[in-house]
């Protein structure tokens, strides 16, 4: 499908993507985490671009971040220090894990950085005060953008951006629902490309292409084959080989709670409420990152509900090495899954780099166990 190919290209040929965005006249603001309020950045006339580590070896970042920081943070810093992100006009860093906060500091203190914002998000997201606090953080970000860019962001601007991002989320949800209900009809690598591409490419283009993909599924003949249905749990998963390996072993990914997956595109921003209130609600109420808190068993409850909803046979934890928040959450999540009789396995890995032999051995065995 040519639309899907465009999404693969968007991340595979980043310099071409950047050139296309430049032609729209938008400044490009990078962000490393799905708590970044993309709608605000977009409403400021800028392009929010999700940062992924390019996978080049770590050389300069070694001087700033020890090897016990995750490969995502070290990889993004390396890209920045090596000049591969010089096209950025700014960056926004949501306050999440320790490594992400240090990345923000090092970013700010090393080299030209254009627009820069730290979003000091609340840690607890389920209290009444966190709603007001989250909204004030977003208001501050809005004001910083307005001052830096010498613009004014109106409620209409924000409402238009919210509507556009809601369209993207809705189309992705429709496509993902089909992908989940009919494993094998859309390859996992293509689904990943759709989500990743939508975080990178021009959002108007993404919305239009995703609408076409979603529409084409209505006419797609469905021939379901029995597979082992797997839910992925974790933070960032930018390992294209993972879904291929799962599919080669007779499985299929049917859902996830990843920062680069459903956690990013599930749910919509209310279009009736005042825009900043609606944005604050959405970022507080979406599936939670373990660097935040919204109840003792919120993540486990969500994961179990995802497993039930997708009729998954098991959960594969994709754990980035040295990702403390997810590592701390894992024992309790596993215990909750065990209590429900849900099989799971933790696959620890570096973003984008695998020992192929061990990687496929683990996945094949896990799929066979289900």
């Amino acid at each position, binding site marked *: 499908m040519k639309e899907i190919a465009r999404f693969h290209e968007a991340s595979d040929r980043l310099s071409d993507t950047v050139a296309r965005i430049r032609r729209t006249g938008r400044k490009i603001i990078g962000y490393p985490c799905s708590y970044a309020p993309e709608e605000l950045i977009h409403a400021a006339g800028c392009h929010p671009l999700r940062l992924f580590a390019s996978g080049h070896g770590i050389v300069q970042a070694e001087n700033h971040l020890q090897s016990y920081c995750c490969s995502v943070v070290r990889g993004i810093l390396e890209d920045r220090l090596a000049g591969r992100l010089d096209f950025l006009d700014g960056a926004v860093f949501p306050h999440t894990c320790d490594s992400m906060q240090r990345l923000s500091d090092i970013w700010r203190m090393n080299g030209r950085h254009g627009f820069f914002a730290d979003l000091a998000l609340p840690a607890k997201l389920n209290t009444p005060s966190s709603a007001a606090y989250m909204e004030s953080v977003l208001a501050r970000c809005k004001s910083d953008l307005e001052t830096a860019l010498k613009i004014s962001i109106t409620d209409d601007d924000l409402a238009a951006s919210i509507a556009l991002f809601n369209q993207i989320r809705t189309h992705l949800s429709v496509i993902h629902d089909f992908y989940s209900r009919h494993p094998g009809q859309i390859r996992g690598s293509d689904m990943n490309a759709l989500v990743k591409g939508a975080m990178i490419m021009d959002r108007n283009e993404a919305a239009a292409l995703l609408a076409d993909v979603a529409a084409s599924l209505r006419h797609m003949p469905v021939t379901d084959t029995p597979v082992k249905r797997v839910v992925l749990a974790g933070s960032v998963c930018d390992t294209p080989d993972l879904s291929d390996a799962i599919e080669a072993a007779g499985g299929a990914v049917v859902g996830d709670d990843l920062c680069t997956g459903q956690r990013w595109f599930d749910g919509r921003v209310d279009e009736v409420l005042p825009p900043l209130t609606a944005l604050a609600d959405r970022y507080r109420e979406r599936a939670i990152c373990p660097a935040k808190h919204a109840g003792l068993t919120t993540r486990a409850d969500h994961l179990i509900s995802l497993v039930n909803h997708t009729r998954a046979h098991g959960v594969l934890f994709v754990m980035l090495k040295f990702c403390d928040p997810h590592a701390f959450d894992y024992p309790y999540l596993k215990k909750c899954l065990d209590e429900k009789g849900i099989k799971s396995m933790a696959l620890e890995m570096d973003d984008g780099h695998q020992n192929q032999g061990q990687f496929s051995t683990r996945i094949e*065995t896990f799929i*066979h*166990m289900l």
Partner: protein
Amino acid sequence: MIFAGIDIGSNTAKAALIKDGTLMGTRVMLTGYHHLKAGTRVFGDVLVQAGLSRSDVSAIVSTGYGRASIDFADKAMTEILCHGAGAHFLNPDIRGVIDVGGQDSKAIALDDRGQVDNFAMNDKCAAGTGRFLEVMANALEVSLDRMGEVSLTADKPSKISSICTVFAESEVISMIARQEKRENIIAGIHAAAAARVGILAAKIRIQGPVMMTGGVAKNKGMKAALETQLNQPLIISPHCQETGAIGAAVLASRL
């Protein structure tokens, strides 16, 4: 009906034949560079040994890191599944398997039917594997086969603090320079490797009876160190090295 299993490991290639739930024979040879050639040869050898030909075999399962190279196998399955099936075939009471192979080590939990219930394997690091022991044997100028016996004479096992094979080797070289006794160093090496494997066993909360499989199970010093680490006796089959191939043959019988 006769079924075959072929296990292409990083060091050795193994083949096994079973008939009506009975082991007919096994063969082991060095893998070398060419996986398919090694698989073809070790399978040919085990057939000759049993006085059979290829057409007598109903199904073949390949396993090990070279499993995908065996193009004449009916199916490739992971060594974790095969070591589990093999251990259950050799002793149906087994509930835990420690497989220490050439380049990785695994802890496997089995249910009462010999199905894999849970597993953990070492990561990229070679500490706690056969390769780790091989590197140390070279540094200490003792043959791999004798390491176990030598270590059992230790009076004060050395403490190896590094978990990385390369760093542990340099630590061992420092101990040699300090003229620490060879048997103590080897006993320390076994304890360090066993500690790594112990982490895997703890991850899956391994239950007994536990069988140790893989070529390293022949090393008595490593067995003793692991028994101390796990605080339980380990069952070692005479076919410890071929357990994966035997399990592959068992799984071939279920295709």
